[in-house]
């Protein structure tokens, strides 16, 4: 039976140095911070060994107070009801992270969306370009907290 305990113990055994602040909320929910260099291998391990074959959601969150951006992955499964929340902290002035499109195919559009809304650069993404926004808004990063909206597009000048 695969539940949150089992997944956490498997992850901590395989990646002893890369997980922090892990928290089991219930049998089905697990939250953990992951080092940014390890996220690709963690996702691969989850897909190959833990039946977590469904990337439910991937999104960005902006924390200007801490000068950090977070990428949040919600990974679920078609086989069991566990939802795992993985978070990666990135510096706000140089957010760059490995793309997981080669692990979860449907991360493609989520990463394009996060890129255009938060300015998070995905390395090795097959086709990193805006998805929803017009080309002129690229570089405004409108979901960052310091975006003042039209016409004061201030965050463009900060990054």
């Amino acid at each position, binding site marked *: 039976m695969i539940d949150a305990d089992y997944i956490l113990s498997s992850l901590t055994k395989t990646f002893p140095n890369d997980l922090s602040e892990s928290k089991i909320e219930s049998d089905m929910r697990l939250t953990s911070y992951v080092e940014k260099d390890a996220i690709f291998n963690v996702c691969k391990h989850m897909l190959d060994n833990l039946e977590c074959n469904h990337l*439910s*959601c991937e*999104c960005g969150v*902006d924390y200007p107070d801490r000068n950090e951006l977070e990428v949040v992955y919600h990974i679920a499964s078609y086989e069991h009801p566990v939802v795992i929340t993985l978070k990666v902290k990135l510096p706000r002035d140089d957010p760059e992270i490995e793309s997981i499109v080669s692990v979860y195919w*449907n991360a493609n*559009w989520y990463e394009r969306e996060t890129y255009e809304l938060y300015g998070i650069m995905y390395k090795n993404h097959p086709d990193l370009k805006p*998805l*929803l926004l017009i080309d002129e808004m690229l570089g405004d990063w*409108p979901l960052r907290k310091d975006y003042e909206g039209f016409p004061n597009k201030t965050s463009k000048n900060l990054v």
Partner: protein
Amino acid sequence: MDTNIGPSEMLMHLGPQHAIQPGPYLLDLRLKGESVVDAELKMGYIHKGIEKILENKTYLQGITITDRICYLAAMSNNEVFCGCVERLVGIEPPERSQYIRVIMEELSRIQSHLLGLGEFSTDLGFVTMFLYMIREREEVLNLIDTVTGSRITQTYLRFGGVREDFPEGYEQKTMSVLNDLNKKLDQHEELYNTDRIYRQRTVGVGTLTKEVATELGVAGPPLRATGVKFDVRKDDPYLVYNDLDFKVCTQKNGDIFARIKVRLDEVRESIYMIEQAFDQMPQGPLFPEGTPYGRRTPVMRVPPGEVFYRVEDPRGEMGMYMISDGSDTPYRVKIRGPVFPTMQALPPLILNTYIADVAAIAASMDGCTSEADR
């Protein structure tokens, strides 16, 4: 997409405005003869920035915004938003409210599936069925209208409960409409099954296998049509779905015919669930007692925290990730709509099919551009 075309190839834009589309999107096709050899989907024509709007509205105002994500699934969008706030605050709706929510969400699912089936039928040129489906759907919309006061964007749910109780005699009225619908569905399904042209255009067309569907991240009826028993109502139960007896409708073939069959079965299953819910529904208050939550919640501050809550939308898994920082507006709301991955899976699905089948395949996925763009 590579735009250098080879011999006997041509590029074609399908959209952004086209009669077969549920909303504006641009499908660029590279054709070799009549077959599609490459496809690319371009989105964003009705991007509304709902996630950013929600960050600037109070929680109560947010309910109204979530209706507008996709008007066909307004009830489940309300549910996912209110469910997030309830989990952050730590309240639970009383049992009667939960049953009312289940009934209204299943009614909403029925009307969404009926419109989906109708739209799909017009795209095939099967206009008779469109008129039948719209006629049946209007009856169901009347039922929703009776309780909520509007046909589509209802804003019916509230934190910890629902806005209105059912009116007098609602159970009898609903069940008579739904029993009628059940009989008509059998007739309609026979029409589908016995139509030779319909079968030629749907059986074995646009086939998704189990492995490909899970890899593409598809959810909802297109996934269940391939035989994967994935339904959030069963796997990650919310409200009182645990107390109801229902089965997850699946098919094996994964083609257009199977997707339509799954939707027809799900309508029947929803009717069965509504019948049970009416039988089991207790009397009682609509809102948890001893809390300030009611129809008119005052300005509320939500304790800091974060939650990921998912429900089964008519089109698949709908999730919401909400972060609160203790103020009266959400810090971050991420809407994980079911249509986003479905639309993303469309280009690989139509590769190596005929251009004439593209419309049928796209319509059978029951996309909604409004939700994918947000």
